């Protein structure tokens, strides 16, 4: 993978002090199973939050609720200074059409966000693709991409409309070490440009140097929240 291009996705407008997402006693229950229990958190702009925990801990459900894909059973999620239109969401699945090329996928999703099918939009999509080290001229359908390429394209799709908030579910799964390091460098740049990033990962070692806060869940409950400097070696091993 080549070095990330300088034409990466940056939020168009600067973050303001008021920009934050507040979760107030949020719970999500599926049948008899409580996926998320009474969680209160605040996510502030220009930071990278890392959600940690075992499978089934409720991290992805929390992210889906923040993206507006699921409604909390109780509690509330309030956006201060943000709109859902300026959120980018990357799921565990690729959210891409296998039969289309990377560029065709990005151009389609750009149109959903109001970017007309003109040369500006094309160059914007090409820039975002380059920022994740993918060749915009690659005509191969996504079904022939490697898993790592899919992950990077999926990240590009989430960034195509210059979001102010990025919600990323397992962005580094099946990505090689070099690609993961380039992706974290890109996320770090976005954070410095004012973007709020909330990511779910099992690979703490990949993000331990870029994450600002590390929030751990267990069985749907918030267990701990630590700043980067407060991380313990056992956290990284877990």
């Amino acid at each position: 993978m080549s070095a990330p291009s300088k034409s990466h996705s940056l939020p168009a407008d600067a973050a303001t002090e008021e920009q934050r997402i507040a979760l107030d006693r949020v719970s999500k229950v599926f049948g008899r199973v409580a996926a998320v229990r009474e969680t209160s958190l605040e996510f502030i702009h220009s930071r990278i939050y890392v959600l940690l925990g075992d499978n089934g801990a409720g991290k992805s459900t929390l992210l889906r609720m923040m993206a507006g894909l699921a409604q909390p059973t109780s509690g509330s999620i309030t956006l201060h200074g943000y709109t859902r239109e300026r959120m980018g969401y990357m799921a565990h699945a690729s959210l891409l059409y296998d039969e289309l090329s990377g560029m065709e996928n990005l151009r389609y999703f750009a149109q959903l966000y109001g970017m007309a099918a003109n040369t500006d939009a094309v160059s914007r999509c090409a820039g975002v693709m380059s920022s994740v080290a993918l060749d915009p001229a690659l005509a191969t359908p996504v079904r022939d991409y490697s898993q790592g390429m899919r992950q990077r394209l999926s990240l590009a799709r989430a960034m195509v409309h210059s979001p102010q908030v990025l919600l990323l579910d397992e962005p580094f799964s099946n990505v090689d070490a070099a690609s993961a390091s380039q992706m974290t460098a890109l996320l770090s740049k976005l954070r410095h440009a004012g973007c709020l990033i909330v990511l779910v990962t099992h690979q703490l070692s990949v993000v331990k140097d870029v994450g600002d806060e590390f929030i751990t869940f267990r069985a749907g409950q918030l267990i701990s929240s630590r700043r980067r400097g407060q991380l313990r070696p056992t956290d990284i091993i877990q």
Partner: protein
Amino acid sequence: MSASTNSSGAILRANLAKDLRLEWRSKDALNAMGFFALLVVVIFALSFDPTAEESRRIAGGIFWVAFLFAAVVALNQTWAREMRNQVLDAYRVSPASASALFLGKVLGNFLFVGAIEAVVAPLFMVFYNLRPLGPAWQLIVVFLLGTWALVANGTFFAALSLRTRNREVMLPLLLFPISVPALLSMVEATTTILAGDGSAGMWMKMLAGYDVIFTVAGLLLFELVMNAE
């Protein structure tokens, strides 16, 4: 930068273009639908040996039942693509309207089913030795209205059955009963035109009314269906 700055028309065109491109590359729906419709027509042609008069009486029923079943294949495919890799979630988080997605799908399915009809209908006429005794141009109107009735309704109910465990089974169970008034109108209008006895006007008006009601209902209710958890 929001979808409101872009017209719903542009998003509708983007959805339609994407669906046409996906189908052109995979040909999943077209191949399955074409093969199925042709098979039904050929089997019926070989099973019966009707006179020209009998053919005119039964052709409408055979043709539309064949296409009702064949359309189900395309309708299941259309949403299966959106569920693969959970792409529908990417649409749901975007500010694009649900109605633009629904209408794009209906138009796409209309083109797919219409294309297969355009190929199979002439063969059908040859197999059954049919020559319309009524105004032939009305057959085209019935085909357009009938196809729209099948796909507008079918696209909505296919979306409704999207998250059910056996969606392939569920779609016909939901779609066929509600399509009975449309199917009756299509068959009666087609038979009347082929036999040349009387006017098919009433059946065509009924079909047009059915199209308007179910298209509007689909547009109004689709957002609820799409965002159901």
